[in-house]
């Protein structure tokens, strides 16, 4: 009730790019007048949760141990961008491999969400992320082309230095439920924006203790030395410089 109307007024302050359409607005207001039970399922407007992830593969050439059908040992994975535990958001990950593999549908029930295999071919892997029930009931697909051989054809393959391909992306939940929000509001793997004024969340339901949580993160992962550190600072700087140039050119053009 109050939060929806206030969010409409303070539309400029919201982290979201735009406000909701009036029609859906009205239906949400009606829903919020329900009992406490339903309040947990209530969605907050103008609050989006994003989970930065990195997914990709690391492939090692087996050198003299390589056989005709198994020349590389590779690991495909999805990890938190800062190596935090994704288990609070992702319930399980399903890796769909090439049909030539035995049991090409591999399910990983707990973090770290990764899969290691040996083979010789590059193909597209479909990674389906299934979320916990309070997060989202719809799964999300990631598509990754497995890379085993180095870009530069002339460079020699070494057993010590693997081929690493990592891609940064963010999982966005545009209308998170209050339960989800309260559960992850202080989770290191999740970006929760500043809540609209006047909104308080119920205290999080304690699920697991800290020691259990640590196991799912990839900070001490054996392959962590090959992980890329994605920083948005460089990109932002690049974009800011470009915009500056465009502004000055525009200014001159419009005043001629």
């Amino acid at each position: 009730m109050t939060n929806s109307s206030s969010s409409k007024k303070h539309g400029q302050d919201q982290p979201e790019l735009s406000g909701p359409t009036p029609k859906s607005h009205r239906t949400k207001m009606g829903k919020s007048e329900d009992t406490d039970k339903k309040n947990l399922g209530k969605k907050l407007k103008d609050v989006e949760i994003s989970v930065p992830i990195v997914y990709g593969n690391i492939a090692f050439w087996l050198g003299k141990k390589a056989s005709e059908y198994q020349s590389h040992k590779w690991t495909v994975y999805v990890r938190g961008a800062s190596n935090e535990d994704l288990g609070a958001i992702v319930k399980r990950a399903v890796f769909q491999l090439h049909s030539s593999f035995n049991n090409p549908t591999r399910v990983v029930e707990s973090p770290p969400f990764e899969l290691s295999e040996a083979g010789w071919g590059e193909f597209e892997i479909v990674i389906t992320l299934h979320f916990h029930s309070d997060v989202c009931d719809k799964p999300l697909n990631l598509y990754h082309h497995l890379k085993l051989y180095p870009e530069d054809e002339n460079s020699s393959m070494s057993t010590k230095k693997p081929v690493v391909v990592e891609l940064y992306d963010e999982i966005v939940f545009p209308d998170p439920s209050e339960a989800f929000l309260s559960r992850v509001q202080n989770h290191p793997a999740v970006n929760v924006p500043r809540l609209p004024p006047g909104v308080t969340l119920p205290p999080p339901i304690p699920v697991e203790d800290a020691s259990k949580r640590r196991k799912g993160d990839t900070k001490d992962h054996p392959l962590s030395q090959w992980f890329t550190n994605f920083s948005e600072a460089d990109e932002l700087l690049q974009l800011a410089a470009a915009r500056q140039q465009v502004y000055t050119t525009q200014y001159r053009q419009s005043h001629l």
Partner: protein
Amino acid sequence: MDAKDILGLPKNSFPPQEKKSRPPKESQRKPDGISREVYALTGGLAPLMPAVDSSQLKRRPPPDEKVAWQWLGFTSSARKDNLHLYHWVSSSVRVVNGVPPTGDYSFAKYNKSVDITRYTDEEYEKYLTDPRWTKEETDQLFDLCEQFDLRFIVIADRFPSSRTLEELKDRYYSVSRALLIARNPSSVDIAAHPLLKEPYNISRDVERKRAMSLVLSQTRQQEQRDEEVLAEAKRIAQSRIPAKVSQESEMAVAPNAGVEVTERTIPGETVSPPPSNAQHPLIPVPPPLSTENASTLASLRILRVYLRTYALEQMLQAASSTAGLRTIKRVEQTLQDLGVNLKPRVPTKAVCAEHLELRKEILTLLNLQKQLQYKEAEGLPFREGSFTETPGTPKDRTFVPDSSFGGNELCTCNLIYLLLGILSTFY
């Protein structure tokens, strides 16, 4: 690498490598019998149609056989009168006892006719009577139908009393339908018969023919007027849709300053402009980017979960839907020149927002540049005119220096300020 070659293992992923090795092999081979250059004319591939077998060509010169001809009699099953005719038969057709074993006249099989169901008099009395038709007329109709194989135009022409073609058709088909139903009481079998599935509808047929003749007889002027009216209606409908969208979303975000979509050309028709529902008269097509954003965000919301890169793509598509392909390419070229990744490497929320803003700014810049070019082009005839004419009014004189200044100094001004801009970002 060398070990792989020795072992004969594929170098890279399995599908692409195989494809690469196949095409070079195919163009090397060529069929024997024709020279290499002639084969190359076909594009290096065998023709689809089997060419004439060359061995058969050699055989054609006739062998030294003499063909004998016989004068024989024949009958045709197509005739009902047992007429005996005679003709020449060549000896290449096997003849026994002077009578060819083929039997029937070879063209008799082409004597096809339409199956017309005829009724008996009792059937007529029971099922087929109609106030508008006498039995005599109906009999005449059916005789003609049989004689002329249901070619109604001919039948209508020869029908003794004056009846329209549609009336004749209607009578024939309704009689046939009634007969069909009467003779086959179990309707299941005949329900699929065309007479029952698609019955002849006389009023619809008449109307259809009238409409067609109208279309055929339209003069060119009428055609043009129809086209204009349709085009105008389409434009009105289109201008109503974005006005509806902008009303529904009720966005408070003002459209970006200076974004004028000058790429839209007004359709070259001599009709008055469509009634502007909510738009500024100078901007032919409403370009509020805020409505595009709103609808994209709404569609993303419906997904309940999505990837940031996917959202960025959707926004880019929405933004570039108003721009042509060439403009998009120019924007991308500008991005590359500025040293920006076309697809951000670290697509966080802030980075994506900045990226979209940058693209919008570049678009604005390109539009400004284009406008400047147009203005220069407009200034050109004035400049040339003032050289040939005697010094005219003061108005001409003052106009000329301005445009020439803009034209010549433009490039250098830009460069100077660009450099200044780049330098300022580093200090």
